[in-house]
């Protein structure tokens, strides 16, 4: 493998993945929000790194927006939501922690297998980090399926978006700036709408335990 760029890219991606695994480990929402915030910072750093080594100035803008949006603004909103609805007992997830972590490890292995053709075909120095990004995508999908608190599902979705952004940056050095902005805007809108819904769930059901959303079954 080549050079400092590749190594640093892998270190950045590993940090992003491991912070994502914290979602499987800790149960309290504060830990989740802190991990998400740290992960967004790590992701922004990785994107800036890629921008530095490829000489692409647009990636700096992307990293800055990511940092502001997902590293600062969204965690603030999440903490506010947590304060509003969070005074709940910790909810036992559908799959317990130890099993979740083991499944998370297996999902990362699966990601290595799935991205094998990509890694062999890619010429980019950042290709070694792509399995980690895909692993994060799988792990966040698992978080969304297996957690009961609506807030955790929202955070899982935000982490999924981080994983996709990482994959895009590592595999293709990102997509054109205008589109990146459009994607950001969409993501922000989606998040705000989800926030509204968590509020509505709380108001209607008096808890944000998604397990209670079982009325419509057939």
């Amino acid at each position, binding site marked *: *493998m080549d050079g400092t760029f590749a*190594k640093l890219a*892998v*270190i950045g991606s*590993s940090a992003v*993945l*491991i912070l994502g*695994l914290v979602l499987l*480990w800790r149960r309290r929402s504060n830990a989740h929000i802190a991990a998400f915030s740290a992960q967004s910072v790590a992701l922004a750093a990785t994107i800036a790194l890629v921008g530095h080594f490829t000489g692409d100035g647009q990636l700096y803008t992307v990293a800055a927006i990511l940092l502001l949006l997902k590293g600062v603004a969204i965690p603030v909103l999440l903490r506010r939501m947590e304060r509003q609805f969070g005074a709940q007992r910790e909810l036992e997830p559908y799959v317990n*922690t*130890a099993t979740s*972590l*083991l499944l*998370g*490890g297996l999902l*990362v*292995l699966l990601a*290595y297998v799935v991205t094998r053709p990509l*890694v062999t075909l890619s010429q980019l120095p950042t290709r*070694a980090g792509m*399995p980690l990004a895909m692993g994060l995508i799988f792990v966040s999908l698992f978080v969304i399926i297996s957690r009961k608190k609506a807030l955790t599902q929202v955070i899982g979705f935000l982490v999924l978006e981080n994983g996709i952004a990482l994959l895009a940056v590592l595999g293709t050095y990102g997509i054109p700036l205008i589109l990146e902005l459009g994607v950001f805007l969409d993501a922000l809108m989606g998040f705000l709408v989800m926030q509204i819904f968590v509020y509505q769930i709380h108001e209607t059901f008096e808890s944000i335990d998604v397990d209670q959303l079982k009325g419509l079954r057939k």
Partner: protein
Amino acid sequence: MTTGTPLSGTLLGGSLLGLAQAGLALALAPGVVGLIRWLKARLQNRLGAPWWQPYLDLRKLFSKEVIVSPNASWLFRAAPFVIFASTAAIAFLVPMLAVPSPLDTVGDLIVVVYLLLLGTFFLALAGLDPGSAFGGMGASREMTVAALAEPTIALAVFALALSAGSTNLGQIAARTMADPAAALGPGHVLAFGALFIVALAETGRLPVDNPSTHLELTMIHEAMVLEYSGRYLALIEWAAALKLLLFFALLGNLFVPWGLATRVTPAALALAVAVLSAKLVVLAAAVALFETRIAKLRLFRVPELLSVSFVLALLAITSSFLWR
């Protein structure tokens, strides 16, 4: 490969070197434990016993009378020796002073893991043997922890072995010395994290087990040795201290191997001893700081922590695999 005096090349030379290593380890082990205790005391604003206190404790224990429960069998008397012997055997195999050493052919990573497990197993049996409630409780808890911790040790060091191309511990250290850039690779960093957590678990330190507690709800290691007294207890305590030192040695010399002697000259060996001591002090300080900062985990949370270290080790292996 070793260049230097022919002394290291022969089996005799290697054995002497191994003996020296093991002796050094045995000598330093209680000191490390004492240092951690002293540092913790200082951090907690207490005066604390001096760092050589464990040596005095051992001497006292060796001179005391042994009381054995009438329910105990031969296992109770034999276990301390097995535990001590297995841990001391590991001391021959872990690279501490010089690398590579000819004793590497006697045992590698797999043997080390098995020896650790042997010691743990006999300790658990010894806890069960006298039929006391505490002993049984401690034994079952210890097995829960060991069941998750042992595979993680194997995986974490195996991750290093993959990038070094051999399970021989000396080779691993030598390869890392030859290729400093790889030491910062994600495989190494993750394996270090995993091994650190496991070291805390295996040696009975916070957050897994409180080494200074005697409350029945929180004991793991202490519960198993509750029935022991006199020289048996001394052997077990010494073996526990030795285990801690060996884990530190693994952490220090596999991941940051510079300072190990590649040639068996007095100067190199002296440097190796000095560097080893430095690493031990640093790691002891780290553990002491860590223990002062966090609280003990509830027992049913311990598997979660160990799962984290297992996943880290798994990730370390996949990273190493890709980096070859």
